[in-house]
């Protein structure tokens, strides 16, 4: 990657924290509070590690999916919609490389936000090992990320489409879980986000992962990410 773009990652990280990170912290704190506060009231202030982990596992899915959505929507489309690309890409910069870097910088920002939130959790409830939770947050980001990246490279108004894809995928996987025929084909073609819940249990309780599920999740996302890069490479941004 070109040195100028690598140096620009500092500014991309600042953009992420200013434009999304603060929103993520506020939204997640409020959402998390609705889960943590009743549990804390029920269990009292002296919560043991098992219960702390249980509370965390109840809170995390509520926060991480919506946070990944906030972190990932408009990754590319915002610059196209608002015309920011005009000045940015008159400089000697590869457009696919710029957004690939922004994707990775956003992952770091996303994990930094959740590291901070886990710190808040440790302060309010009880310290728990953050590694499993952070690994699962990273997995959620990466699983959603490639698809979000691809959709954002194609459409200016990507977030309703992204929301539709995820809701559709969750619904289809719920309704047609055991169906065969064309329903199975449709189900298998949609993003395998339903595998994330099981992955959380594996990672946080067993400290392991179902390799097939994770490979399927990351492979699907990686294919979409590559498709997004191809779109950025071939399709003019204007």
């Amino acid at each position, binding site marked *: 990657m*070109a*040195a*100028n*773009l690598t*140096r*620009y990652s500092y*500014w991309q990280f600042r*953009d992420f924290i*200013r*434009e999304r990170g603060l929103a993520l912290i506020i939204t997640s704190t409020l959402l998390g509070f609705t889960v943590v506060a009743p549990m804390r009231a029920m269990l009292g202030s002296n919560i043991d590690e098992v219960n702390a982990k249980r509370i965390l596992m109840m809170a995390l899915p509520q926060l991480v999916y919506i946070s990944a959505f906030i972190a990932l929507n408009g990754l590319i489309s915002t610059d196209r919609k*608002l*015309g*920011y*690309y*005009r*000045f*940015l*890409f*008159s*400089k*000697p*910069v*590869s*457009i696919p490389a710029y957004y690939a870097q922004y994707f990775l910088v956003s992952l770091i920002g996303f994990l930094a936000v959740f590291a901070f939130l886990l710190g808040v959790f440790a302060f309010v409830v009880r310290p728990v090992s953050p590694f499993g939770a952070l690994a699962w947050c990273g997995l959620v980001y990466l699983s959603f990320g490639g698809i979000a990246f691809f959709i954002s490279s194609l459409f200016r108004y990507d977030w309703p489409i992204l929301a539709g894809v995820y809701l559709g995928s969750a619904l289809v996987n719920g309704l047609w879980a055991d169906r065969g025929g064309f329903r199975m084909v449709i189900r298998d073609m949609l993003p395998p986000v339903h595998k994330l819940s099981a992955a959380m249990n594996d990672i946080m309780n067993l400290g392991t992962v179902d390799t097939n599920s994770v490979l399927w999740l990351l492979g699907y996302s990686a294919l979409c990410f590559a498709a997004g890069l191809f779109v950025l490479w071939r399709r*003019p*941004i*204007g």
Partner: protein
Amino acid sequence: MIELQNATKVYRSLFGRSVTAVEDFSLQVAEGEVLGIAGPNGAGKSTLISLMLGYLRPTHGRVLIRGLEPRTFVEKNGIGYLSELMTINPNWKADEALVRFATLAAIPPADVRGRVDAVIEELGIGEHRDKKIKALSKGNLQRLGVAQALLRDEEVMILDEPTHGLDPVWTQRFRGIVEGLRRPGRTIIIASHNLDELQRLADRVAIIDRGRLQRLVQTGYDQATDAGGTYRISIATGADRLKAMFPQAVDSGDGEFELTFSSIADLNAALAQLIGGGVLVAGVVPSRSVLEQQFREAVGEQN
């Protein structure tokens, strides 16, 4: 340096409607040349510029910069570009925006601060450097846009409506800046509605309308194409003598007369006759610049 070969850009909507923004456009812009682009609103100027920056790809034909596809050229070399639409994140500060653009422009880290300070000084926006983009006036924002285009010593500069929103003082200074940018090997393209500005700055002006290149006008004097024109002659004394010598002269009042000549040589002969006849000539200006005349003819014929 920049070559457009039968470039055509057609926009197609989802519902099958199509609009041809640029049609069969062929033009070569040489190294060291300043090319003006003039045309009425919706003529296709912005699409043409987007094609040159690789933000759009031609539907037919080709656009090449130094033999490369525009995007390839930009990714290797960069282009000093000022957009007509000042689309910079409104939450960035002016100074911060320039540091960001300098970083992207591959200016070495040790030189970024110095280069940013230099363009801030040159464009006189020092007192606004800590303001957010959204707090800048139109004129200051425009100066910031010019500043970011000047950050690096680019071989190609594309300035879209560069003096839009600038006050007369800065419009004048901008002309000086562009004059200073001229150098062998650098190609400058200026799109503007201001024909007077293009007449002063450009070597040639491409007049476009309805997506087509209508005329390519040489702005300097060219004996081969000299067709004369109408001139406004101001005189201090001797109005009666002028009227006697040139009865066809149109009296515009206040000692100003309009006379039409078939060539520059005829104009000079007439001036010599006037001065020889004791008329004190105070000034001679074309009623309409060559460019304005050509523009009216080219665009007027179409509309």
